[in-house]
């Protein structure tokens, strides 16, 4: 049963990006909802809460807190909720549903079916547990040959970013394996000969555990 009362957003963006995050109470009763923003070292920097009526939407006013630094956002509710995030800059929009284990969008092994050599690829991994996690990343080309392998240790409720500098500008795929449950975002920013500027695509890592 995919209903969840806890949603994770790996990023609320700093700087010139404008973030819109909305959650909806999808139950037939009032829901008490709390939003908690953390920096990528897992320190709580902002929180807010409210009561939402059945099927009422709440645009979470987190953005002033993220003016100078990227944050993660966890939304907790005493009733089931769904949520969505749009991160805007001009014609570029990165769109993500709120992620959770119940919705099948948080797990131990995430797969991103595309990595584009000539574009800017950027990944955010968010450890949604309180326990430090060892994380391994495998970059493959389109034929399945391993091109790069690297990793890190990510503290509980912390965030980690890697990009083309680490993945090596490969045309291929990315797999992320973690000891603890994580959520992953890919931000694809078009550039180069075949990809017009002003385009971005956001995707959650697809959960493929267990194997």
């Amino acid at each position, binding site marked *: *049963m*995919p*209903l969840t009362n806890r949603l994770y957003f790996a990023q609320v963006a700093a700087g010139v990006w404008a973030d819109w995050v*909305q*959650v*909806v*109470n*999808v139950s037939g009763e009032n829901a008490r909802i709390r939003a908690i923003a953390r920096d990528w070292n897992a320190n709580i920097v902002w929180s807010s809460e409210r009561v939402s*009526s*059945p*099927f*009422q*939407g709440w645009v979470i006013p987190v953005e002033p807190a993220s003016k100078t630094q990227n944050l993660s956002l966890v939304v907790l509710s005493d009733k*089931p909720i*769904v*949520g*969505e995030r*749009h991160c*805007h800059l001009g*014609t570029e*929009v990165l*769109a993500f*549903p709120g992620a959770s284990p119940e*919705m*099948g*969008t948080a*797990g131990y092994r995430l*797969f991103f*079916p*595309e990595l584009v050599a000539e574009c800017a690829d950027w990944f955010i991994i968010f450890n949604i547990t309180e326990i430090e996690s060892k994380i391994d990343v495998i970059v*493959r080309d*389109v*034929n*399945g040959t391993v091109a790069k392998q690297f990793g890190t240790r990510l503290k509980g409720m912390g965030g980690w970013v890697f990009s083309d500098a680490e993945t090596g500008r490969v045309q*291929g*795929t990315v797999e992320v394996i973690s000891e603890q449950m994580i959520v992953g975002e890919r931000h694809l920013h078009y550039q180069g000969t075949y990809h*017009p500027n*002003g*385009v*971005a*695509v*956001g*995707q*959650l890592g*697809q*959960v*493929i*555990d*267990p*194997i």
Partner: protein
Amino acid sequence: MALTRKIYFPQIAAGNWADWVQVVNINQQPANVQAIARNMQGILVWQTSNTLQPYQAWVIPVDPAYPQADVSLTVISTLPIVGERHCHAGTEVLAFPGASPETKTAGTRLFFPETVYGCHDNFRFLNITEYYAFVTVISRDINGFTVRRFTGQIPPLGFWIFTDNEIGNVQGTLEIFSTQPVVGERHLHYGNGVAVGQLGQVLS
């Protein structure tokens, strides 16, 4: 268990939209992968197949092969796969993962947390079963009040489309109930070169 051998894409777009669909064999053995395109009525109109090595990716050549009309695409594999679709026109991109019941992106109750008054919202639903699906749609405003309610019927493996005309151009949310599992896409067009694609979130 999130692994799946069958993924669904409710749309491969006709006209000036350029579709790119890629699937990846996420196993250590070769996989036989078949791609099947169907029209709105669920009738098979195109198909192809390929053998993929472990972690090899395949861009399915459905867009140039069937430009006549919108179709759906079902990808069936002998071993688990994942997939992704990007649908392009200028700076507008609609991006979707391949959907399936196993990855919790196909079900009998779907929810879309946003509809935007003043933008163009376009929804499509693919019935992934061999039975007729009877679908009820509830459009609510941002405070949760029901604004519109209507129904539709989707043929086996066929799809159904509706837009702002039906939902009432509301700032709010959308929920659908279906008698059979369906996959749902929302296409949000801002009207100024920006588009967002989202799968319906399964609540069943």
